[in-house]
């Protein structure tokens, strides 16, 4: 007899509502989270969420690893847009260590981060379509996500869990093939996004499924700690890229799309518009990168030999490079003690890193402020009183990534 791991509460036979377990194994690839719904017919009376089905103890793991090795953990937070998490972590370390990155590195980072944002929003918007029944959009845009993966591969070698960049810059300069692929992306993608948009934006079935469901007001959203597209759909124009610019975002011209009611349709529209804005930022960044000529075009990392591994040819021939290499690998670099909190605008909202360092090679305490974890609490309020199918749409339009929920 196998044991059931759901215990029925007392009085559950006498009550008039149905208990439905929207359990950890979903038919839609959202990741593992469990909602136990109390239904009155098709209407939802209340819900209780259980998470932790993919708790991998990142925060405890991080206390074991030196700063450069924690990048591989940050990959796996929001795995649809790993480069964003990686860059956020590198910027946190740079804040702690006092490293300033040159402009070219900043612009290259912006290109990679905005590509990651497009990849994440593409998944979210197409999965909202899949949950409403439209599978075509998802298959169509996956092809362009493959192109984004190819660009990552040219830079760092991996498709999904990229571990891209190092403290101070990148591990190698972007080669010509990467720029060719980027140009191909910039040329072909706008037409694709237009087609994808036409499939959904004024589609009557989609609008009727998503308008009016899962709405939240701006005050409740702020009280719940919403950030990112979910907050902007509710009407608050808070975007970390504009309010506390990092990585030279102040040099770019972009708009922040804002919704009105905070329902599923507004969230879809906000993400869609953000993809257009990201595309424009990438074009601007690419132009700025191409303006660097000569020796400046070879700069791909900050000049910080204490934290950035020197090139191998130098390690074998020069004394200082050998010493820096030894100190970095053995973990004897000077890491100042202190605490720093840095946050970036990840695809889902404000992804924050709270790092307490005691001077040793690994952090004393590292905490990830994960946007999904914070706004999933509001799910009960969002779906109370609505129908079961609306709950499914709300769950997918909130863009819940299980890796970020549980860490």
């Amino acid at each position, binding site marked *: 007899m196998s044991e059931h791991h759901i215990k029925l509460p007392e009085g559950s036979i006498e009550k008039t509502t149905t208990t439905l377990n929207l359990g950890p194994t979903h038919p839609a690839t959202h990741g593992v989270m469990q909602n136990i719904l109390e239904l009155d017919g098709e209407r939802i009376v209340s819900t209780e969420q259980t998470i932790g*089905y993919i708790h991998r103890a990142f925060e405890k793991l991080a206390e074991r690893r030196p700063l450069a090795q924690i990048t591989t953990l940050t*990959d796996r937070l929001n795995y649809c847009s790993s480069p964003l998490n990686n860059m956020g972590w590198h910027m946190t370390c740079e804040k702690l260590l006092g490293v300033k990155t040159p402009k070219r590195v900043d612009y290259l980072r912006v290109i990679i981060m905005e590509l990651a944002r497009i990849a994440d929003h593409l998944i979210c918007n197409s999965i909202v379509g899949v949950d409403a029944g439209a599978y075509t959009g998802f*298959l169509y845009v996956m092809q362009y996500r493959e192109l984004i993966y190819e660009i990552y591969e040219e830079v760092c070698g991996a498709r999904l869990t990229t571990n891209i960049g190092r403290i101070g810059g990148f591990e190698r300069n972007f080669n010509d093939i990467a720029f060719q692929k980027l140009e191909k992306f910039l040329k072909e993608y706008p037409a694709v996004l237009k087609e994808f948009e036409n499939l959904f934006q004024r589609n009557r079935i989609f609008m009727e499924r998503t308008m009016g469901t899962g709405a939240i007001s701006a005050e409740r959203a702020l009280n719940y700690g919403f950030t990112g597209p979910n907050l902007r759909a509710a009407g608050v124009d808070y975007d970390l890229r504009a309010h506390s610019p990092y990585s030279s975002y102040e040099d770019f011209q972009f708009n922040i799309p804002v919704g009105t009611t905070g329902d599923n349709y507004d969230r879809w529209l906000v993400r869609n518009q953000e993809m257009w804005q990201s595309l424009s930022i990438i074009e601007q960044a690419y132009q700025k990168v191409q303006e660097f000529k000569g020796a400046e075009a070879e700069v791909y990392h900050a000049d910080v030999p204490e934290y950035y591994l020197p090139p191998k040819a130098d390690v074998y021939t020069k004394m200082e490079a050998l010493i820096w290499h030894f100190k970095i690998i053995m973990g004897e670099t000077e890491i100042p003690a202190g605490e720093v909190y840095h946050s970036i605008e990840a695809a889902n909202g404000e992804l924050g890193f709270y790092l307490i360092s005691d001077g040793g090679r690994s952090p004393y305490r590292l905490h990830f402020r994960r946007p999904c974890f914070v706004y999933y609490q509001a799910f009960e309020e969002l779906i109370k009183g609505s129908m079961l199918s609306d709950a499914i749409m709300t769950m997918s339009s909130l863009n819940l990534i299980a890796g970020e929920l549980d860490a």
Partner: protein
Amino acid sequence: MSRPVSYNLIQKPLVDDISMAEMPEGHQGEGFFATSLDKVIGLARKNSIWPLPFATSCCGIEFMATMGSHYDLARFGSERVGFSPRQCDLLMVMGTIAKKMGPVVKQVYLQMAEPRWVLAVGACASSGGIFDTYSVLQGIDQVIPVDVYVPGCPPRPEAIIDGVIRIQDLVGKENLRRRNTDQYKALLESYGIQ
């Protein structure tokens, strides 16, 4: 203490851009073909596996890319991915399984009907991956028997397809009575499954 290394030495030459599957051995004549039953059943089963994608984390996104049109998994017969264990043959566990999720994986495995196969995709499902922590199950073979492991973090779509092809080899060559043998029953007993 070195472990033996094996390379993929099976090469099938490509003839005219089309690769034909081999016919099983048997006698054929005018309008009939006689062969043993398990070969026919194996051939039919292996080219129409219905997988259940148990996607938990990053490997699930690579699975989505595998199901996309670039690396199409549907051409191997897995067009219909089902989410109901009662209707599926292959349980593809993709992603980290935490100790909280272990009973759920076991429950899903128990609900599948024989014959069933399990593919562990990714380092986390095979052995716990990079997460050697108190909360992660160090490989799903702690709770269910696994047939093929696909290493990688995440494995490339080509690697996932390779794993599915090896499952197809297993399915094609399986003895029809295997599920009733004592050895298989002993295997399930060792996992606590009746």
